């Protein structure tokens, strides 16, 4: 052999290596060592070509492992790719395309992959039997050992930073989705395309054609490879067809929505391209031409490097010109592996013989081997293998005709064993589509049981009948591997059944067979047969475990698409945002809005800034951007009747030009939102909600209007964004407004508290109401949102002689505490009813029905020991959430602090809290508990500041 690597066939053998381009050499590394391969190689083929046979250590026992397959079902040869933030663990080396500079690392092995002290675990393998973590490593606690055991498991490591790559979503509707671009899939796609359907064709490989193009078969007089190439080109040219290669179908969801994961290989990436694309396909018909997966044989030590699937060995030869060994034995129970014998012989590799576990080998197969001068060992199955690091010998046993067991055995020296236990169709997606599957005795594989209305499986031609035994009848069950990835042996299955985990779903979970990244593609079926045999049942009676998406691992970034970072949640800003940002505002997230928390001046701390702003408001004047406040208009003859049904307040006495503060409840009587109802006209109301409640309340009102009271004539329109809301508050507010060009009379007699005036301000239409959250004289001025910046600047200029200051959300939320004003969501939770926060009498005084009314008289909501909102005065600031206890209390807690801050002018600590039967406890001293520290506070009746409301009402 010449050509790069000891196991690579020379270029003279042109029928091999169809996928590689010998003119392009690619350098890559594995565990720090440099290697070369060709363009078209995978990591597995290039390493095999270079003579590397051990690529990983097994999960529990740290046995050396090599390449087992040539595809996505690989359970052994998983590697870590790349470093840092782009490092990816558990990557199948059999699918990883080489590119220049590729860096790969093995997962486990200390001090090195080839010399792994962890191998000692193989000699105490009983400790690692199924469910070991429930029985061992328990004292003093599992966590003492957990970290070490996880590290020893060697599943690679997570990337060390945020994913810097881009991922895209594509949504597509089509008539026919064909999954699988092998010969069958190409045929289906051509038929559908010719019929004029919109077709999407997806195949996980780098090119169309599937396995058929690599086994030298012929189609319609030409080689399968040429046929597939021409079919692919025709499909790519068609307008009504989308051809996706390197694209795996990962999930089949309700209503025939299928997700596909398209990989962009590194060597094709260009700036701006995503790393992966997640396709969401909605199809009228789904063709599952997903082929079949070859299954292993089960015998002692069936996991050594050098043992691999026969179909894979043939792929390595034909696709990559790689010979998997020098002296090869083939062990099979069906016809398909015989083609490998022919190919290996052609490649000049010594084939020691073919062991066929069938007693009656078909005459044609026997004749083929005879013509190649390759020995046929009929009724023979491997019963053991040897080789501490890699395979060095295989013991074949001759099966007895009757009674089980073997009659003789013979050892052969070899360095590769290609096994074939038959093929099972890849029907995962069919099962995800809720198609029923069942085990079929004739083919010893799963098959569809029913007809699915949309998903049509096209079964592979590799389905064979008359298969020979798959399992060696002798040997030690603890050395017979069923799941290579999770190191599950036959003895683990026996243990599960002994411990009465008999259902296949329980056996799966107890032993973890089929639960790893390969999802049991080469272990579920053997496990099913073994469990059936152990339970004395037929495999068809055992059922099968549920197939779930994803079919192959999917990068989380692909599922997220563009929805990360700044696109994770949209951030809303008001028309005053630029001003805030330019004037020292600390912008923070309040719900979906970016708002100024405080406007910091140079040298001051956050707390100092907040107190400065609050003092300014109480001393003279402050300006606040209240635009996020929810605003909803109700229009119609029944607008007032409709609105009245939502609030605990009697709104029917509201007059045009007047506003009223109201509480809105859920049907259960608990507080949903609070706000102001302003009557613009008898058939036009404007309601305000909390900033976070705008959508919720609008949707709530729409629901009742459409579903419960469709007879009421009312329309609901959200106008939150249409109006910019500038709140001018403080004792000098009136004077400042008087200097501006307007037709509104600002005086206290003409424009009292809770009044509304519509007029013009600075030439723009304005809607002003007097409602206050600060407790000072306040004018909430609404102008069209685009006019807000002009108004804002004008107010600041007019207020300059009065030392007006802009103030942020934090000082507003603090100022309202000393006034005892409710903050729904802070002072209330999902159990709070109106009486808890002092609004019981208002609710009780309304005779008309409203949402929540009936619930208010339920026993739970009238309990005398409910938590009630009170104030607390204390020497030092109390942390929010501190728990309270009444003197002589026998309860673990009597309530907690819901809001806390400082009085603006005095700086004294003020707090609001929910306290058991609190309204009757004024003057009582309570203990305050926080993180082990205990202080004291006195219960007071809020508000702490201006109790008569003279400043606000003036």
């Amino acid at each position, binding site marked *: 052999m010449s050509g790069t690597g000891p196991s690579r066939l020379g270029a003279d053998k042109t029928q091999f290596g169809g996928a590689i381009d010998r003119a392009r050499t690619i350098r890559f590394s594995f565990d720090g060592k440099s290697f070369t391969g060709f363009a078209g190689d995978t990591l597995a083929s290039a390493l095999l070509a270079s003579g590397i046979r051990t690529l990983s250590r097994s999960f529990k026992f740290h046995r050396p492992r090599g390449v087992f397959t040539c595809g996505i079902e690989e359970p052994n040869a998983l590697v870590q790719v790349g470093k840092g933030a782009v490092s990816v663990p558990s990557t199948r080396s059999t699918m990883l395309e080489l590119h220049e500079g590729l860096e790969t690392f093995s997962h486990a092995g200390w001090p090195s992959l080839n010399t792994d002290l962890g191998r000692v675990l193989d000699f105490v393998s009983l400790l690692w039997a199924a469910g070991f973590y429930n029985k061992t490593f328990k004292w003093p606690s599992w966590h003492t050992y957990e970290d070490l055991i996880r590290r020893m498991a060697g599943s690679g490591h997570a990337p060390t930073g945020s994913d810097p790559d881009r991922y895209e979503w594509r949504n597509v509707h089509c008539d026919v989705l064909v999954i699988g671009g092998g010969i069958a899939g190409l045929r289906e796609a051509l038929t559908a395309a010719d019929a004029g359907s919109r077709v999407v064709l997806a195949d996980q490989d780098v090119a169309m054609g599937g396995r058929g193009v690599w086994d030298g078969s012929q189609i319609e007089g030409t080689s399968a490879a040429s046929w597939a190439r021409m079919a692919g080109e025709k499909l790519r040219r068609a307008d009504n067809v989308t051809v996706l290669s390197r694209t795996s179908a990962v999930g089949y969801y*309700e209503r025939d929505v299928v997700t596909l994961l398209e990989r962009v290989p590194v060597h094709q990436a260009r700036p701006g391209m995503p790393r992966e694309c997640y396709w969401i396909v909605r199809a009228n018909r789904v063709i599952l031409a997903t082929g079949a997966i070859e299954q292993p044989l089960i015998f002692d030590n069936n996991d050594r490097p050098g043992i691999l699937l026969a179909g894979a060995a043939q792929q390595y030869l034909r696709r990559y010109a790689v010979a998997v060994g020098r002296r090869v034995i083939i062990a099979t129970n069906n016809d398909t592996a015989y083609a490998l014998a022919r190919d290996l012989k052609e490649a000049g590799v010594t084939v020691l013989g073919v062991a066929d576990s069938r007693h009656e080998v078909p005459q044609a197969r026997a004749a083929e081997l005879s013509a190649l001068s390759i020995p046929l060992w009929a009724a023979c199955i491997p019963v053991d293998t040897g080789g501490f690091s890699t395979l060095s010998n295989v013991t074949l046993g001759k099966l007895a005709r009757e009674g089980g067991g073997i009659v003789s055995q013979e050892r052969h020296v070899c360095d590769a064993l290609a096994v074939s236990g038959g093929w099972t169709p890849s029907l995962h997606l069919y099962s995800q589509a809720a198609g029923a599957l069942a085990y079929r005795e004739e083919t010893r594989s799963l098959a569809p049981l029913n007809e699915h209305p949309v998903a049509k499986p096209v079964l592979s031609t590799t389905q064979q009948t008359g298969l020979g035994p798959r399992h060696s009848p002798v040997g030690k069950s603890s050395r017979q591997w069923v799941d290579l990835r999770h190191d599950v042996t036959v003895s683990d299955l026996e243990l599960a059944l002994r411990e009465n985990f008999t259902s296949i779903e329980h056996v799966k979970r107890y032993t973890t067979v089929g639960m790893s990244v390969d999802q049991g593609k080469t272990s579920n079926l053997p496990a099913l047969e073994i469990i059936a045999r152990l339970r004395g049942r037929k495999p068809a009676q055992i059922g099968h475990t549920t197939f779930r998406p994803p079919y192959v691992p999917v990068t989380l970034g692909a599922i997220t698409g563009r929805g990360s970072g700044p696109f994770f949640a949209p951030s809303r800003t008001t028309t005053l945002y630029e001003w805030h940002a330019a004037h020292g505002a600390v912008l923070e997230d309040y719900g979906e809005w970016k708002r100024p928390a405080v406007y910091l001046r140079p040298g001051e701390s956050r707390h100092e800034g907040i107190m400065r702003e609050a003092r300014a408001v109480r001393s003279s004047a402050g300006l606040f951007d209240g635009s996020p406040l929810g605003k909803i208009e109700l229009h119609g003859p029944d607008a007032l009747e409709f609105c009245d049904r939502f609030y605990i307040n009697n709104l029917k006495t509201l007059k045009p030009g007047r506003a009223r503060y109201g509480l809105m409840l859920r049907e259960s009587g608990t507080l949903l939102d609070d706000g102001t109802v302003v009557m613009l006209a008898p058939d036009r109301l404007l309601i305000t909600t909390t900033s976070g409640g705008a959508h919720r309340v609008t949707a709530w009102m729409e629901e009742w209007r*459409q579903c419960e009271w469709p007879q009421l004539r009312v329309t609901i329109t959200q106008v939150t964004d249409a109006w910019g809301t500038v709140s001018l508050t403080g004792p000098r507010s009136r004077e400042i407004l008087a200097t501006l060009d307007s037709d509104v009379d600002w005086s206290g007699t003409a424009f009292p508290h809770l009044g509304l005036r519509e007029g013009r301000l600075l030439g723009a239409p304005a809607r002003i109401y007097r409602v206050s959250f600060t407790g000072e004289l306040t004018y909430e001025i609404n102008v069209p949102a685009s006019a807000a910046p002009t108004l804002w600047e004008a107010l600041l200029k007019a207020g300059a002689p009065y030392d007006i200051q802009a103030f942020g959300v934090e000082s507003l939320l603090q100022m309202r505490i000393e006034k005892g004003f409710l903050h729904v969501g802070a002072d209330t939770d999902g159990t709070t009813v109106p009486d808890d926060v002092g609004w019981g009498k208002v609710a009780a005084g309304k005779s008309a029905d409203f949402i929540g009314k009936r619930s208010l008289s*339920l026993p739970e909501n009238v309990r005398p020991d409910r938590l009630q909102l009170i104030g607390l005065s204390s020497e030092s600031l109390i942390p929010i959430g501190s728990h309270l206890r009444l003197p002589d209390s026998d309860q673990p807690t009597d309530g907690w602090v819901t809001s806390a801050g400082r009085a603006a002018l005095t700086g004294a600590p003020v707090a609001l809290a929910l306290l058991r039967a609190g309204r009757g406890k004024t003057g009582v001293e309570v203990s305050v508990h926080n993180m082990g520290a205990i202080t004291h506070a006195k219960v007071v009746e809020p508000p702490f500041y201006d109790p008569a409301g003279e400043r606000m009402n003036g």
Partner: protein
Amino acid sequence: MLRLPCPYCGLRDEPEFAFGGPSHIIRPTLEATDAQWTAYLFNRDNPLGVHYERWAHAYGCGQWFNVARHTATHEILAVYRMGDPKPALEAGAAR
């Protein structure tokens, strides 16, 4: 992911919709006993089979409508407007 047939907009993806619980629940009057009212608030049927339920096309036309959905197979058996009576369906209708 379900795809729901909005009676006004046609077949749309599930994330466009908000689920609103079962349909045809009669809201009791203020004269209801505590037990009747609590049952209205908190007790709901949970059938294996056809479920009549309310959906709103929240990120589309905003309209509420009713759907008969099979709770095991997610098959949509009927779609009818809010306020329309419950349609007569064959028992056990499912895929």
